[in-house]
């Protein structure tokens, strides 16, 4: 009798173990029972690194990032995620303010010669790198010369730099071969990041594992695929930071990042684009979390190959472009957490013009275009998209939007590296690649549209557009620049070598414990002013 009861109990335990989870899932969202006090005391947080300089009980901020940063050395970096971490370690010659305006950072002031070819920078004085090396004109020259080397990923950004001269300890003269108005905005990113010359010389190629800048937080360790730990730079020139330690933690899975924000393992989720559907679960918990969602500087859309396949015909390109309902696209794919658009420039950009507006699809006009293109009964094309779920959904939405016009979309899922290869070689009919965006319009435009441009995957060639794009990058006057861009976009909207669909949003999730955050339109979190209650 007793053994019977024991067995029953045991069986119950086994069944319970297997089904506990199923019974108390709470459905994943709408979790009303979330406790209001997610404190580090109740949830064991992952311990800081042994080498960490953070004092016990110090303030530790954990930031979720969506990939492992491949290279923390600005010289070798090409991934967006690198810039999150780099912006804490390295200061730049210039930075962007909350309105996206360029402001001096390590530079104190600057002058541009009337011909637009000579930039004279006065530097901030008394600044030191985290290893104690002095920051001065020689350090600026050292960095810019290094970024121009053959193996540097910055070489292309600085290709108009002829020479860099240290005039005196605090003055640098940069001579360009031609006027280049995006130059200062390029110095707000990796090409403007100042690395310690003595650390670069000491570590050589291994500097990537020992990055040293003048920034608010100094590098401690990088465990590949897991986290990067930084510690407070007490000697920071702009006042000591308030946090003792920052951990950038890698979550390749979007939903996992959300759950870790909710459980208190991270204080900031730096990018929620990978878990759009879960945003309401954070948003509803207004007592503990804030969501910030702002239109970014990049764009997403479809390259249409003008050299082979159906899209050699301009009218078929136009038909596809006009059949896309951009509002519906954003609603379906992003629940509204993206901004519909028809332009390489976000609405906040100086280059944004009237032709960048978009209209609802007009079936009669689309049918007329198909007839003009010689395909009144529709046609089919192959569409290469990435391998993720989001890319699949993108493809499915496009399929449905084009179906009413008998335009058949054959989806091919291709890995990112391969897509770049196919884009470069023109091995595709339609290709879904977008761009994360840069502050200056030229950096979202020139290489994408000029003949043989490095990102002109559509293989579009139009001397008039080339001329306008060149004039726009050499012109100093913003009003005139805008006119060039608007004129070029008029042509491109008619030619549709690329169908612009939307601008990704920068979407952050914050624990209410985090204070001192200022949103910068490039979507990168500046940690210097952050604090944690």
């Amino acid at each position: 009798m007793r053994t019977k009861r024991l067995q029953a109990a045991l069986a119950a335990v086994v069944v319970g173990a297997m089904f506990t989870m199923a019974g108390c899932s709470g459905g994943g969202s709408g979790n009303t029972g979330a406790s209001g006090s997610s404190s580090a005391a109740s949830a064991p947080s992952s311990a800081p690194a042994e080498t960490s300089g953070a004092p016990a009980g110090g303030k530790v901020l954990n930031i979720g990032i969506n990939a492992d940063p491949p290279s923390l050395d600005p010289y070798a970096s090409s991934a967006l995620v690198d810039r999150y971490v780099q912006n804490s370690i390295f200061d730049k010659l210039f930075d962007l303010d909350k309105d996206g305006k360029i402001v001096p950072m390590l530079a104190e002031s600057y002058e541009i010669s009337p011909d637009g070819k000579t930039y004279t920078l006065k530097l901030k004085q008394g600044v030191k790198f985290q290893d104690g090396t002095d920051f001065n004109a020689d350090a600026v020259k050292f960095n810019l010369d290094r970024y121009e080397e053959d193996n540097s990923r910055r070489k292309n950004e600085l290709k108009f730099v002829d020479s860099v001269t240290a005039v005196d300890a605090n003055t640098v003269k940069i001579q360009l071969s031609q006027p280049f108005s995006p130059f200062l905005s390029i110095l707000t990113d990796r090409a403007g990041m100042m690395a310690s010359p003595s650390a670069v010389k000491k570590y050589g190629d291994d500097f990537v594992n020992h990055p040293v800048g003048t920034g608010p937080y100094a590098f401690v360790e990088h465990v590949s695929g897991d986290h990067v730990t930084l510690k407070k730079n007490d000697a920071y020139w702009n006042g000591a930071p308030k946090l003792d330690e920052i951990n950038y933690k890698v979550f390749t899975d979007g939903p996992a990042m959300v759950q870790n924000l909710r459980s208190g393992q991270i204080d900031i989720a730096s990018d929620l684009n990978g878990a759009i559907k879960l945003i309401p679960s954070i948003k509803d918990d207004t007592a503990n979390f804030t969501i910030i969602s702002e239109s970014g500087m990049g764009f997403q859309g479809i390259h249409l190959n003008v050299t082979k396949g159906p899209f050699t015909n301009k009218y078929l390109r136009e038909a596809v472009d006009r059949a896309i309902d951009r509002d519906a696209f954003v609603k379906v794919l992003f629940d509204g957490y993206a901004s519909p658009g028809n332009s390489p420039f976000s609405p906040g950009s100086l280059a944004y013009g009237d032709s960048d507006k978009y209209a609802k699809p007009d079936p009669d006009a689309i049918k007329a275009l198909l007839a003009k293109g010689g395909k009144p009964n529709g046609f089919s094309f192959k569409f290469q998209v990435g391998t993720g779920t989001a890319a699949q959904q993108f493809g499915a939405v496009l399929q449905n939007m084009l179906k009413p016009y008998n335009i058949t979309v054959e989806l091919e899922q291709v890995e990112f590296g391969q897509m770049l290869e196919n884009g470069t070689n023109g091995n595709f009919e339609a290709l879904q690649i977008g761009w994360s965006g840069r502050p200056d319009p030229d950096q979202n435009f020139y290489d994408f549209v000029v003949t043989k441009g490095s990102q002109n995957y559509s293989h579009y060639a139009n001397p008039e557009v080339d001329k306008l794009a060149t004039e726009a990058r050499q012109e100093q006057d913003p009003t005139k620049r805008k006119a060039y861009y608007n004129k070029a976009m008029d042509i491109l909207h008619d030619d549709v070598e690329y169908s612009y669909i939307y601008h990704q949003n920068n979407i952050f999730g914050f624990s209410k414990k985090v204070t001192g955050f200022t949103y910068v339109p490039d979507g990168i979190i500046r940690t210097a002013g952050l604090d944690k209650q």
Partner: protein
Amino acid sequence: MVFFIRRLLLTIPILFLVSVMTFILIHLIPGDPARVILGQEATPEAYAALRHQLGLDQPLIVQYFRWLGGVLHGNLGMSITDHVPVSALIAQRLPVTIELTIGTFLVAALIAFPAGILAAVRKRTWVDYTGSFAALGGMSIPSFWLAIMAIIYFSVKHHWLPSSGYTPLSHSVSQNLIGMILPCFATGVRESAVLMRMLRSSLIDVSTMDFVRTAKAKGLGEARIVLGHVLRNAMIPVVTTSGLLVAGLLGGLVITESIFSIPGFGRLIVESVFKRDYVTVQGAVLVSALLVVIVNLCVDLLYAAIDSRIKLGKAGEA
């Protein structure tokens, strides 16, 4: 001893074949690391320069033997994308996954043994049906779903356990173990179902044998018969299954590792494949092949320990 030496010698051609296969496969996948590393901002010059720098412009056969030469000197090479020795990456990641594997197996065994024994002893009763039904459920539940549910319940809702991360054992044993509970549980539940069914059927097979009837006739109690005699005789297929399970886990925990953000070995391989980091993939696959060989060797040794009639090294064995 002879058995050992023979097995170890056999390992060499196996590893060689694995390395050749891996090399061919990874180079067959379109796309190359230079593209992945440079991303969208690659100019043709930068692309060509990087390929040259990485030695990717050499003929494949040259690339392979250059790599093999390094391996024979005990050097697995430098990761293409991470600027660190592959051996360092593996040394960092493998212990994590080994720990996760052991934990997962323990969870699986702790559930499977009592459940399997109970189901076998009370076969075709409600106990058995409940156990089998639960096992079917356990097998059917994807571990990633269970993992996410566990995170929502134990971390988000109650803050009992951390939802991610890994603390090295050297840093804090308690933190490490606390962090391992959820991932081991989420994967262990599913694996336990496989083990339990294997154990149940094996026990039922053995319990019809003559020696069991003899033991019963001698008046031994049920518990003594099952735990003392039947279980040991039923262990051979269970050990085989366990070996396969452990070998599979060593490379196959990538989903668990991703959900719990654990820097494990499985993730290293998958990430390296995506990044086309040929050198790391080759090194990691070589090491995992070696691990599978070692696990199989351990399984053979266990056979001998369980059943003294099995003599290692006899023809037809191993």
